[in-house]
């Protein structure tokens, strides 16, 4: 007998296969388990290991869960290259569409592609190419030329075309002629300054289900689950939208931000209009997607620890770690003298980062290690949110100042949710998340001023995004139950 009332939500992650079992009637998590992902050999081995644990630890029989769906970021995640015309316009729009679909964007290219750029694309081995360029009725030459170059390339991956609709037929013909898999979808920028990422997002997702899942060796899992329906980051973004908007009869939390600090990247999702909150400010640049995702590939706790230090600078990292010490995480051993910044010299910081970069599965044990993780997490959050939010530019005229706003104004945002190991299993998640706060020293960066902080305490955001596919109201209730204010 299967339990219709139980759902098994599976996340095939890059390192772990994570399971969340939910009792749909009671909107309760009845078990979670994980085991290393085994995409190289056979994806089912890791899944079965995790399922065995779920049964042993919680008495939940995965085989009896009536609904079983999965998301995946295994085998490198969904890798994409985005191509547009002008860097700030259709190329940026294409990048946002790809990010919104949960992709890892390997490269963003603009104008006519050069031979060297095509070669670079071939070497990057993306799973999908997103080709945009021109508003509807606008420039056709460049997207057509780029279709021609892609047609001649050795890239044999699905190409999603989301550019000038008046060039779409010609682009399709050129690519089909060359034997490519082509999907035409709505223009990411049908009119100048109008962002339209939804059709591309939907198309990318269906390509993911049809082709990428199999290409990544996940096909066997589909015998057991109803489907591997989206990349993991898309599930997190779906959860963010659900929590913000709510469902009929069950209100959401309103505009919010989710910060996901991982080993390799730090992702920031905001679900908010980001309209100016101060009078006399003129919005500029591309309009922002209501649900926006940014990914910082150089900011992370392990793989990207070195690049984090590179990007932030030793000084900033030392300050972060020192601050974590003052907040009560000061190690009695080793980092004793590191209450402030003293002792955290350049050499020490670099060797810490080097060590984390080499031991990517390292879990903090000592007080000192907790302090380091908290400090790095703080800096990663600070920088990722700085890059995510909008900023004000002051234009001085002889007659006074005018203000331009690029990106989202999130100063009034009330809700910041943290996820990822360093906040969930760390000692001071609040301090890590405080990196998201408005900084008086950088008043032009429109970060949240007085938000409340919440923790994804059970690590279920992606599971909730998946569950939203089949039972949105239940998914919302589950999420609300396990969100812990800190």
């Amino acid at each position: 007998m299967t339990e219709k009332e139980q759902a098994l939500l599976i996340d095939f992650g890059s390192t772990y296969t994570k399971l969340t079992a939910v009792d749909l009637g009671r909107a309760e998590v009845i078990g979670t388990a994980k085991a290393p992902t085994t995409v190289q050999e056979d994806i089912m081995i890791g899944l079965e290991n995790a399922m065995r644990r779920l049964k042993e630890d919680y008495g939940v029989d995965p085989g009896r869960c009536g609904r079983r769906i999965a998301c995946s970021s295994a085998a490198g995640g969904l890798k994409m290259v985005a191509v547009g015309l002008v860097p700030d316009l259709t190329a940026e729009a294409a990048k946002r569409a790809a990010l919104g679909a949960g992709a890892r964007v390997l490269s963003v290219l603009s104008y006519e592609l050069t031979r060297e750029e095509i070669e670079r694309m071939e070497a990057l081995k993306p799973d999908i190419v997103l080709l945009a360029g021109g508003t509807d009725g606008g420039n056709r030459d460049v997207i057509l030329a780029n279709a021609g170059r892609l047609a001649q390339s050795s890239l044999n991956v699905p190409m999603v075309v989301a550019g000038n609709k008046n060039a779409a037929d010609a682009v399709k013909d050129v690519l089909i002629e060359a034997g490519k898999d082509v999907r035409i979808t709505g223009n990411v920028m049908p009119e100048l300054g109008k962002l339209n990422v939804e059709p591309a997002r939907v198309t990318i997702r269906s390509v993911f289900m049809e082709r990428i899942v199999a290409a990544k060796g996940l096909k066997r899992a589909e015998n057991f689950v109803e489907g591997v329906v989206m990349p993991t980051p898309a599930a997190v973004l779906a959860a963010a939208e659900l929590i913000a908007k709510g469902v009929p009869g069950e209100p959401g939390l309103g505009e919010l931000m989710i910060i996901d600090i991982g080993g390799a990247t730090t992702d920031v999702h905001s679900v908010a209009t980001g309209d100016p909150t101060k009078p006399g400010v003129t919005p500029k640049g591309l309009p922002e997607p209501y649900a926006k995702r940014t990914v910082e590939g150089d900011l992370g706790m392990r793989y990207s620890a070195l690049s984090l230090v590179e990007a932030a600078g030793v000084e900033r990292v030392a300050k972060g770690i020192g601050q974590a010490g003052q907040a009560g995480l000061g190690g009695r051993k080793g980092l004793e003298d590191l209450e402030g910044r003293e002792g955290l010299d350049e050499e020490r910081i670099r060797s810490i980062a080097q060590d984390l970069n080499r031991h990517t599965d390292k879990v903090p044990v000592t007080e000192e290690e907790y302090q380091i993780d908290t400090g790095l997490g703080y800096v990663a959050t600070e920088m990722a949110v700085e890059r995510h939010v909008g900023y004000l530019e002051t234009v001085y005229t002889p007659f006074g100042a005018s203000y331009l706003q690029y990106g989202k104004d999130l100063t009034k945002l009330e809700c910041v949710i943290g996820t990822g190991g360093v906040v969930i299993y760390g000692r001071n998640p609040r301090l890590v998340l405080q990196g998201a706060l408005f900084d008086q020293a950088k008043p032009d960066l429109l970060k949240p001023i007085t938000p409340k902080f919440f923790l994804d305490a059970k690590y279920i955001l992606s599971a909730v995004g998946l569950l939203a596919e089949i039972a949105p109201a239940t998914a919302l209730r589950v999420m609300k139950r396990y969100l812990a204010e800190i």
Partner: protein
Amino acid sequence: MEQKTIVLGVIGADVHAVGNKILEQAFREAGFKVVNLGVLVSQEEFISAAIETAAEVIAVSSLYGHGEIDCRGLRDKCRESGLNNILLYVGGYLVVGKQDWKETEKKFKDMGFDRVYPPGTLPQEAITDLRRDLGLEAGA
């Protein structure tokens, strides 16, 4: 007939918004596709917009007296960006105070503008010129 596209905006740090709205309305009613960038528009924004939309014309307004500085180099940047045949129009209150119009006009033409309009120009005048310059005149 295919619609011709005009990119419109008020250049530099200029916030005079009323004339811009009137021009947008008038050009649209005359059958053009108008991409209005509003106020506080940089040269780069005019150019990027013209590239993506394959516009035939960039129509620049400047009211606050700094037109000359703000407009300098626009033609060169268009050429540099591959917009070889684009028409450049400019109007508003192009210079501070009352200067000789002929001189002002020459200055802007030398900068590469195809049409230069004095204060108080009515949109209709520009529409007539647009039709002529774009070969849209009846019988043409």
